[in-house]
């Protein structure tokens, strides 16, 4: 070796030659790798952009829905029961209650459809159209809407009031063109007169596309798809997330702290560790089966209830939280533990006064990401009956409910495809918005906490 170096005419220049030859190859591979990286990022972002673009362009229009702006006459001939009974000194409590409930029943049973019909006909007195076809113009919930408005303010009896009534899903389809307008009459959902009236109303400005706030405040509806909303599913999801946070965070953090800081390192803890990692890889539908078998059949918890959904999602979120908490515990420098132990702090004090506070941002991020994952989970919820049609907003985690992703799944399968295709995308937008919000909170809190530390 030394011999060859010494015998070479000029060892330095030969070495440089050698390095230069290699350099070209090294630069080439570097450039290649950089381009490959840029390309894959562009591809990934491209797919995401296409996905979001499609969902947004499909879903956004359904946040604005055809609405009829009419003048409704609260006709005393049609609305039965007369004026609301007033409380007077002369009649007793029981009398008043009886009178009131009689009045309520009479109002409820009144022919509200005719009130709606009269209000529409008032706009076009000359137009010839059958009652059924005319009412197809508005949502079937229109009569309940007017009735509820009347209950809220019974003084309007005998007066004419401006009201805005949602158009039916089919009207909306026709006006937005989500149904093929060139199809023959036989294949249209609405009678020719109804379609003509819809077009005429739109032109006159009687039908306008108003912001559909009811998507956020109404529950799902089969009979009146136009007024179906997400409120029930949202509350169901909210209750489940509450269950997940209340259960998964303390259990997950406690397990992680025990395993990382206190448990002896032996075959048992190795086994537990492997199993936790496996748990993170179990398909979610299996958790659903488990939930149905254990929580519903064995413990007798109510079917379709957010409490059961929350428990199942807790099982799914636990490994995420445990793994993330352990890795942030491991990232705490040993010198911190030494400092505390060296001062005579017990192991408990070391962990709770010094180690755990440092991992707080990590645990928080893991929790929010785990909760966001759980929020989007669908399959296990189908298995515990949360895909049932529920027409009420759940008032507790024990009530029947559905969840946002399940609602998306249900709407996706609705028979009125033309209307619900856009509606499904709208629900996806709401769900994605919630997730983005959760992630933004995670990032914000993380940077705040890390700055403070």
């Amino acid at each position: 070796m030394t011999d060859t170096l010494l015998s070479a005419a000029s060892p330095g220049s030969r070495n440089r030659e050698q390095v230069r030859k290699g350099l070209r190859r090294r630069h080439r591979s570097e450039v290649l790798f950089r381009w490959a990286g840029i390309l894959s990022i562009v591809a990934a972002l491209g797919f995401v952009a296409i996905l979001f673009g499609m969902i947004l362009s499909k879903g956004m229009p359904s946040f604005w829905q055809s609405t009829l702006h009419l003048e409704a006459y609260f006709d005393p001939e049609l609305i039965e029961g007369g004026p609301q009974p007033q409380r007077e000194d002369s009649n007793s409590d029981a009398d008043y209650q009886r009178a009131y409930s009689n009045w309520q029943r009479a109002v409820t049973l009144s022919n509200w459809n005719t009130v709606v019909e009269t209000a529409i006909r008032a706009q076009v007195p000359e137009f010839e159209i059958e009652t059924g076809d005319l009412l197809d113009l508005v949502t079937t919930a229109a009569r309940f809407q007017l009735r509820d408005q009347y209950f809220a303010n019974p003084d309007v009896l005998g007066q004419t009031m401006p009201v805005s009534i949602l158009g039916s899903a089919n009207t909306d389809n026709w006006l937005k063109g989500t149904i093929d307008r060139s199809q023959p009459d036989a294949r249209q959902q609405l009678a020719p007169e109804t379609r003509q009236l819809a077009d005429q109303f739109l032109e006159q400005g009687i039908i306008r596309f108003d912001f559909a706030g009811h998507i956020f405040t109404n529950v799902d509806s089969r009979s009146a798809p136009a007024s179906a909303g997400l409120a029930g599913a949202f509350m169901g999801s909210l209750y489940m997330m509450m269950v997940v946070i209340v259960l998964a965070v303390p259990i997950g953090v406690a397990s992680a702290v025990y395993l990382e800081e206190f448990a002896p390192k032996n075959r048992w803890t190795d086994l537990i560790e492997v199993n936790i990692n496996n748990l993170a890889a179990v398909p979610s539908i299996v958790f659903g089966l488990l939930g149905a078998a254990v929580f519903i059949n064995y413990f007798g918890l109510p079917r379709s209830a957010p409490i059961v959904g929350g428990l199942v999602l807790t099982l799914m979120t636990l490994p995420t939280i445990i793994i993330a908490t352990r890795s942030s515990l491991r990232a705490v420098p040993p010198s911190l533990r030494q400092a505390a132990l060296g001062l005579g702090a017990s192991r408990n004090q070391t962990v709770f006064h010094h180690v755990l506070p440092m991992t707080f941002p990590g645990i928080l991020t893991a929790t929010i990401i785990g909760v966001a994952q759980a929020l989007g989970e669908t399959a296990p919820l189908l298995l515990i009956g949360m895909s049932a049609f529920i027409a009420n907003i759940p008032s507790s985690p024990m009530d029947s409910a559905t969840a946002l992703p399940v609602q998306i799944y249900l709407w996706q399968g609705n028979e009125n495809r033309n209307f619900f295709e856009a509606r499904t995308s709208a629900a996806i937008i709401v769900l994605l918005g919630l997730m983005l919000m959760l992630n933004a909170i995670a990032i914000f809190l993380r940077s705040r906490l890390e700055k403070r530390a």
Partner: protein
Amino acid sequence: MDMIAGKIKLTSKTVDQSMNPLDVLERETRLSARDVTVHYGDKQALFGISIDIPDRAVTSFIGPSGCGKSTFLRCINRMNDTIEGARVGGSIKLDGDDVYDPNLDVVELRARVGMVFQKPNPFPKSIYENVAYGPKIHGLARSRTDLDEIVVSSLRKAGLFEEVKDRLNEPGTSLSGGQQQRLCIARAIAVGPQVILMDEPCSALDPIATAIIEELIDELRENYTIVIVTHSMQQAARVSQKTAFFHLGKLIEEGVTEDIFTNPEHKQTQDYIMGRIG
């Protein structure tokens, strides 16, 4: 600039030992170790260490890297307990109490034997909280004023108070390396220990910060038993009255610092001091 020069001058004063070298032999023994062995799993790190450590003096452990100085130091306050797989044999007595007595609470032991580490490791809390933490967990302060007093006097003893008195609420990590190390010393002092163990306390510091710490160690000697591990022979010579030389897990030689450096008995000690091993 003047201040720094002053500090260095002050330090050079401490170099000429103010304590009569023979005095150290007359000091009472505070710690005595007999036949201490340590295993890390199957690997033996210490082979029968026996040494007496005098009260109110500085004892330094020197020796090449990996010879077991830190391991022995950790035996004294049982920090080895926290290392998975570490086993300690033999006996160590602190004022006659067996440190490894199963009835002795390790929390109490560590309140009597404080420790300062190689890299300054203040808690990510305020300067005040750093010093107050020990007294708080040991219940040493009866009131807020008590605690304030302990914090101030500990910072004073560690020679840090004047530099930080206006920013006690700022994080301890905002201080310079040397100040952080003095904060760690103040933190240890605040618990009121008899013994302070220091594991290469200056190895992460610049020369000026080192000089200040050395000066501080010399002051603390009057009230505490100090054991310091150092890889710098000059430092051992400057601050300690007694020196022990370790090699490959064995205690080769111990004695009055001056004797060890001027007149070592063993060839290995001589080789190390002459820079032939290490």
